[in-house]
């Protein structure tokens, strides 16, 4: 699992909802299906909201790592 390579990266620490999701969505739109985007999200509201919105858009969260008070997610773009 730890070997998943990210094709792009977004640090969303300090970015509020729903701007963090909008940025994620826009970044994914510029990527190819199957590519992986790594994002860093704050705990609290961002981690409550962004993962479910990503799922609703049909993408897959392939890896989650908790680091102190933030989360590192790897998102695989849907076909």
């Amino acid at each position, binding site marked *: *699992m730890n070997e998943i390579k990210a094709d792009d990266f977004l640090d969303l620490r300090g970015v509020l909802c729903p701007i963090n999701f909008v940025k994620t969505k826009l970044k994914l739109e510029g990527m190819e299906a199957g590519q992986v985007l790594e994002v860093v999200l704050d*705990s609290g509201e961002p*981690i*409550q909201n962004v*993962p*479910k919105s990503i799922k609703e858009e049909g993408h897959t969260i392939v890896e*989650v*790592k*908790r680091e102190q008070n933030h989360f590192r*997610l790897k998102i695989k773009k849907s076909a």
Partner: protein
Amino acid sequence: MDRFIEDKITKVQVKVEGQEKKVDFSELKTGGFIKQRQKDLFAVRLRCPGGRITTEKLIGISKIAHKYSKKGVVHLSFRQSLEILYVDYREFETLVDELSKIGVKVASCGPRVRVPTACGGCEYNPNGLTDTQGLAGMVDKKYFGTPTPHKFKVSFSGCPIDCARTREMDLGFQGVVDPQWDEATCTGCTICSEACKEDAIQSHPETGKPIYDPKKCLWCGDCIRACPTSSWQAKRYGHLVRIGGKHGRHPMEAKEIALFIPDEKVPLVIEKTIQWYQTNGARGERIGKTLERVGLENYLKFMETVFSGCSILEREAV
């Protein structure tokens, strides 16, 4: 005393189906025509179950409202209906006729089952767990206008946020989902415990896997939606049923009486509840007051077969 009331007459001559008849204003109210302060003028309440109107109907209604409202205004009622204000009672017949041509009916007031209200529900709201709009339509078709001891308001909320305020209804249905966790697919990412706003999920300090407390759970489904590996799944969807709420001068909070009532049982719950209310309710008494007077146990006993397997008490025993 009331300097704004211009008209104190309560009866008028009016043509009904071509015949001159004396019409009682208080009787008109049962048909959704509500006397205004101004002489000869009424508010006409339309029937919009769940607050849903097609754009086509809305265009038709605005044309009609523009023609019949002496001030050119409509009011959005607190129960999601449109009310055409400042309508002259002499024009009721043609107004109703024009409305029926575009498939719009007039609602009602008084002691009967009112037009149900509902939120957007699962149709387009991401939080929605139940088809509130579909159910509101069903209630409107099957039970609207059924006579009861006093007004009887039903509403549907699609999730525990409860926008349709089921706690203030005579009978309210709020969407719920029972979450079920699969250990094999869980990676212990801890997102569910972060997503849960009720502290019903704690993460195990070493494995990160969820420790679930059903007593704290509100059944909103946030854990299911947030879980990256779909390890949280919906075991069952249903309704949390509340009874005996009201607002008004003396508000009452509804009591929770059943959990995970499936969609197909909703009509039965309504039917049996109305039946109990008709038998036990005194004239002019809301069901909340009847429950206080006769006893909640009496009602629950009557509903036993309907609520079996969905009792709140059964949950508390978990």
